[in-house]
């Protein structure tokens, strides 16, 4: 503020207000950072005690020695449920994005965009309740497959929207060049546009998977949970978030530790995916810019 020296210095109430303003901005920053720091530290400090070979390889042990058990059934279940969801949602989302970015103009496209926006803002438990009635209640049992379908409702619009934005970043010249060389539209899209957007599409997929991994409510209503390993997609299946929820509600101390362990693993997986996605997307933007 060298210029201020030639001006009337700001005094009194004006100065006090300005200082209060600046201090409160820093306070906001401090609050946000402290919260994040405290949560991360607790999850790390408490969760690390649970990590052991048994934790990753065993099913929950008996009530007598709960600390000797593990949550391998939750890892397998999460893999199954999110795998089923990804297998369905990624192709659907990609092709929806291709329509929106490459063909979509006019009313149909904006209707689809609006709908994906609406689906994105729909509470995830609503997706759970929907699959609960059409699959679980209708077929009479909770299952990994139903859990996967509930996650599809959440992932499809995420993949579609995020991929659409990435496809739009691909320079028009690439498409024109390819079309001018005589490649048909569909080949241009699949062989030129999509590969050019490759890393960005991966980003979209990673964001969607990260989101699906941490979802609890929709799979609670559909996959329910299970104390044992289950590999049948048509039977109730455990998942890491469901195990944390179940263990946290028991009065058993050792199970609380296991819940923290699950939270630590889940948090690491989700953070790796979302930070990875961020790094990739920054790189992609630099490349295309």
């Amino acid at each position, binding site marked *: 503020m060298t210029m201020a020296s030639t001006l009337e210095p700001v005094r009194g109430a004006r100065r006090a207000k300005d200082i209060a303003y600046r201090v409160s901005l820093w306070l906001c920053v401090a609050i946000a950072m402290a919260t994040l720091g405290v949560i991360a530290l607790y999850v790390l400090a408490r969760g690390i005690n649970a990590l052991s070979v048994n934790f990753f390889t065993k099913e929950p042990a008996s009530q007598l020695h709960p600390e000797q058990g593990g949550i391998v059934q939750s890892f397998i279940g999460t893999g199954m449920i999110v795998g089923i969801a990804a297998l369905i949602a990624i192709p659907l989302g990609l*092709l929806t994005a291709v*329509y929106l970015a490459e063909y979509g103009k006019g009313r*149909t496209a904006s209707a689809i965009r609006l709908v994906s926006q609406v689906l994105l803002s729909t509470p995830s438990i609503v997706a759970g309740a929907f699959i609960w*009635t059409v699959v679980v209640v209708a077929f009479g049992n909770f299952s990994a497959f139903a859990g996967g379908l509930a996650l599809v409702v959440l992932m499809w619009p995420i993949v579609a929207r995020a991929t659409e934005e990435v496809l739009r970043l691909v320079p028009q010249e690439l498409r024109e060049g390819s079309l001018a060389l005589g490649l048909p539209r*569909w080949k241009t899209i699949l062989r030129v546009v999509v590969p050019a957007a490759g890393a960005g599409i991966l980003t979209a997929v990673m964001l969607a998977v990260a989101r699906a991994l941490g979802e609890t409510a929709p799979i609670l209503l559909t996959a329910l949970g299970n104390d044992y390993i289950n590999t049948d997609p048509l039977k109730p299946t455990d998942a890491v978030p469901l195990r944390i929820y179940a263990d946290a509600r028991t009065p058993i101390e050792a199970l609380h530790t296991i819940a923290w362990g699950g939270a630590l693993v889940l948090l690491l997986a989700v953070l790796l995916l979302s930070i990875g996605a961020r790094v990739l997307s920054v790189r992609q933007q630099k490349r295309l810019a």
Partner: protein
Amino acid sequence: MSGSVSADELAGLGAGAARARRSRFIDRGFRSMTLLLGLALIGLLVYMLIDLTAGAWRTFEQFGLHFFVGTTWNPVRGREEFGALPFIFGTAVTSFLAVIIAVPVGVGLALFLNQVRGALANPLAVFIDILAAIPSIVYGLWGLFVLRPFFDSTVEPFLASTIGKVPIVGALFSGKTQGPDMFTAGVILAIMILPIITAVSREVIAVVPRDLREAALALGATRWESVRIAVLPYARNGIVGATMLGLGRALGETIAVAMVIGNVPKIGWSLLAPAATIPSWIASSFREASSVGLHRSALLALAVTLVIWSFLLALVSRVLVRKTEEQIGEPVGDEPVSVARLGAGG
């Protein structure tokens, strides 16, 4: 090349035409397929709404408007009575509390992020993204085992002995401070919606013309004055929009709330009392309801109520952000799709 065309060349042309025809056919097929999937997404939403409403119909038919104002929730067969008011109340109070806490902090962060460019802004934005990426079950676990005991032992007794003693307002912080309560749930929700409020406010503030601020500063305004005069009036609608979006997120948040609120369908003045929200109640009673028609229908009616609420909020928020765009004449939100924008709690 001579003037005449050889038979080979003719055949080649024919093949080329056939290939072009086939290619055009594939082209059209590919386009139709992608269009069909786009339409399927619309179909999914429509089917979801119809299915939920159809499932809830029995309840609406039997209880009518009473469903929204009734305070008794009794799934016992033969004596069924379903009134959703306690859940509507719990949802409204906790979400409102969350917004009251999160909006000032979020807007502050947004202003900060727009002011400091470079070295500090980027890591801070990453931190906020991380906050958005934390799964709701992790917030719930932390809320249950760390925040709640801390609030029970320190914060809530303090609030009860200070604000709690003030007439009228004091009713909000009266009663016993131990155990699950709406206050803890509201604070957890505030942390969870902070990223979306920050992200949207930041985008809105970013499009406020810089020259206005600079003009204010050049005329001798302090930083605060320049923000008050040249930033906030323009960004106001957008910030309200961000608030609505945050409110929408808070309404639908399930697991983290279910873990700290106690799931008791009661209506009372004190924030220190346990309650239940629409999502937390669905999550805690869907199991018994799976095989019971009317109980199931009542839970679906709760889900429908939630959907209506969140749609309305999303709509209002969209309109408000649009309004800011019109006012400023620039589109809001050229940020890449980020975690904060895409994550809606579970």
